């Protein structure tokens, strides 16, 4: 239907380019942080992440080996060595004073005060000579412009997982998420069946109530429930947050499942009734197996929602080291370690890795759930 004569190829190119631009816009922020999470602290703070993929040019000040290392060559005293600690890199320029740190090309000889000379070659080997013996305890300063090849490290992940408490938060998030995803499903499925296939007074009113409760802001619920939880002694307990997430997730669960279950073929259910099956049997033998796609959709929704939630976790769970969830930890890091991008980037990716995996493997169900939840119902 888009093949309007003569316009296809030109339009096709334009569309492709536009989509590439959109995709780039939408992925670059994430890629930037992902790349940064594999760089070390100095690299992140001195150069943009987009340079991580190519060799980076840096102006560095290195000290030569101390005077203890000098050797006598004829009537000259010489200190020699390599400015790269690990021997990798390239020098593109060097200098002998801070006033002209890039004045000399590698291989040439620079004149210093007191008849000393310095030379640095492209691979970083330096040689400093002096007619009199070097004294003092510190080496001579060498100003160099270096090209460092791309370097990536897993050290950030190692650090956040094993010494920054992220692992603990990861486990906490899991602890919160799994029961809060599983428990609402059964409760909602039974209710959805009743709302879809059983006749009773007040049914329409209940459906309307569920639709209305879908949009109640959580902010309304926080204070009364916090007071209630404190009164019955589950104020800062996993049990409290499981119940809260179950309650908050139910409207969507009932709504999604009711829409789906109401759309199942009437004949199947009627014929089962004629055969003498009770509602409980119909639910267990027919509805539950047939609604698997809808159950999966809701499970994914609830999983992503609970995993990514900050508000409910902050209110119903403690902010102490033992109970902090991933999102809470990230927020705390943003406040206290705002400039430590190596920590922030790695932590952020630890926290979003799980939802991303769920997202990419179960996208089909997620999309189906979204469509059932919005297009049909509204």
């Amino acid at each position, binding site marked *: 239907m888009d093949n309007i004569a003569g316009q296809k190829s030109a339009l096709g190119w334009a569309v492709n380019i536009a989509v590439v631009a959109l995709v780039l816009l939408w992925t670059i922020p994430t890629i930037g*942080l992902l790349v940064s999470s594999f760089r070390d602290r100095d690299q992140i703070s001195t150069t943009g992440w987009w340079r991580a993929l190519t060799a980076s040019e840096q102006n560095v000040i290195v000290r030569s080996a101390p005077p203890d290392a000098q050797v006598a060559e004829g009537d000259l005293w010489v200190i020699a060595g390599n400015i790269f600690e690990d021997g990798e890199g390239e020098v593109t320029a060097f200098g002998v004073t801070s006033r002209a740190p890039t004045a000399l090309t590698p291989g040439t000889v620079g004149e210093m005060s007191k008849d000393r000379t310095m030379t640095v070659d492209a691979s970083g080997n330096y040689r400093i000579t002096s007619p009199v013996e070097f004294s003092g305890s510190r080496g001579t300063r060498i100003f160099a412009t270096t090209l460092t090849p791309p370097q990536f490290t897993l050290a950030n992940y190692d650090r956040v997982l094993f010494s920054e408490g992220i692992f603990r938060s990861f486990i906490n998030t899991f602890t919160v998420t799994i029961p809060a995803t599983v*428990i609402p499903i059964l409760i909602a499925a039974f209710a959805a069946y009743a709302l879809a296939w059983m006749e009773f007074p007040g049914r329409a009113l209940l459906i309307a109530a569920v639709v209305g409760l879908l949009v109640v*802001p959580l902010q309304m619920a*926080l204070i009364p429930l916090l007071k209630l939880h404190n009164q019955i002694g589950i104020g800062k307990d996993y049990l409290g947050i499981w119940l809260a997430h179950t309650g908050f997730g139910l409207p969507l669960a009932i709504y999604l499942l009711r829409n789906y279950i109401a759309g199942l073929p009437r004949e199947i259910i009627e014929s089962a009734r004629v055969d003498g099956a009770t509602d409980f049997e119909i639910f267990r033998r027919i509805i539950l197996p047939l609604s698997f796609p809808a159950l999966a959709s809701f499970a994914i929704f609830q999983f*992503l929602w609970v995993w990514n939630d900050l508000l409910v976790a902050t209110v119903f769970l403690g902010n102490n080291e033992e109970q902090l969830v991933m999102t809470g930890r990230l927020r705390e890091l943003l406040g206290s370690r705002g400039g430590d991008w190596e920590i922030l980037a790695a932590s952020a990716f630890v926290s979003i890795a799980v*939802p991303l995996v769920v997202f990419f493997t179960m996208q089909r169900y997620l999309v189906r759930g979204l469509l059932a939840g919005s297009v049909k119902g509204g």
Partner: protein
Amino acid sequence: MEQLLYASATIIVGVFGCVAYFYGSNLLLDVALPPRGEKAGRNINLSNMIRPWLFLGPAVALLGLYLVYPVIRSIDLSFRDASGDAWVGLDNYRWMLSDAKFYESLINNFWWLIVVPAASTFFGLIAATLTDRIKWGNLAKSLIFMPMAISFVGASVIWKFVYDYRGTGGDEIGIINAILVGLGGQPQAWITLEPWNSFFLMIILIWIQTGFAMVILSAALRGIPEETIEASILDGANPWQIFWKIKVPQIWGTIAVVWTTITILVLKVFDIVLAMTNGQWGSQVLANLMFDWMFRAGDFGRASTVALVIMVLVTPIMVWNIRNARREMV
């Protein structure tokens, strides 16, 4: 590890508990009112009246306790003092109407409510239209949709890095400032730049929500009957006209749904503001203001009052949704 055991135990107890409740209560009903014998007719009628409530029981109880009761209780709390005990009449409302931060939040929320749904729907519509025309459209959709899976806090970290500002000395490591410097401009501290910083925070939510709009609108666009498009092509309409005059009018309903869904989300969103600015530099919003009063100040009365304002703002959409749902069911 102990808590994982606790969690597993809860799942098992919870699932078994549910099954036991539903099975047991249904069994009990069948035994108490057997559908045979001399009173069979009466029993069947009675159990048909009771059974739906057995199915609905746990759900209705939880919804009532976790969503309906809090609404009523919040209204009550908004007339009480900080600890929620003493009755203070309209004091909290008087405070709110004279509070500068409240007005700031209201104005910011107004902009959030206009910009985020509009931009997300717009970009979603464009993305849906374009990706439906190309071969690698599904991959492109996945990538644009991906931010949906990222938490608001995670997204805030990602974007804080995009907006990063170094000022003088050293390269800019935030990509926006780097591009700006590359073009010869001055780097900016975007997050603290009043009054525009709110808009930079909105971009984060737009980035997250565009995928949602795209997925739904893409399905709606595919549902448009081919005949209407073929007819317009025969009549000589160009692609631009087809899109705006044939396709868009046919999916108005879906656009409205997307728009309202994002609107609701915008009213509730607070994570982004909390993580990025915490309401400083003139970027406060209602949801974060409520959180502030509840958590930092511990004033339950004022926090409830602010929460009620959010509730009132949501109500028209709630009514609209209910009316639509009822119309569809008839």
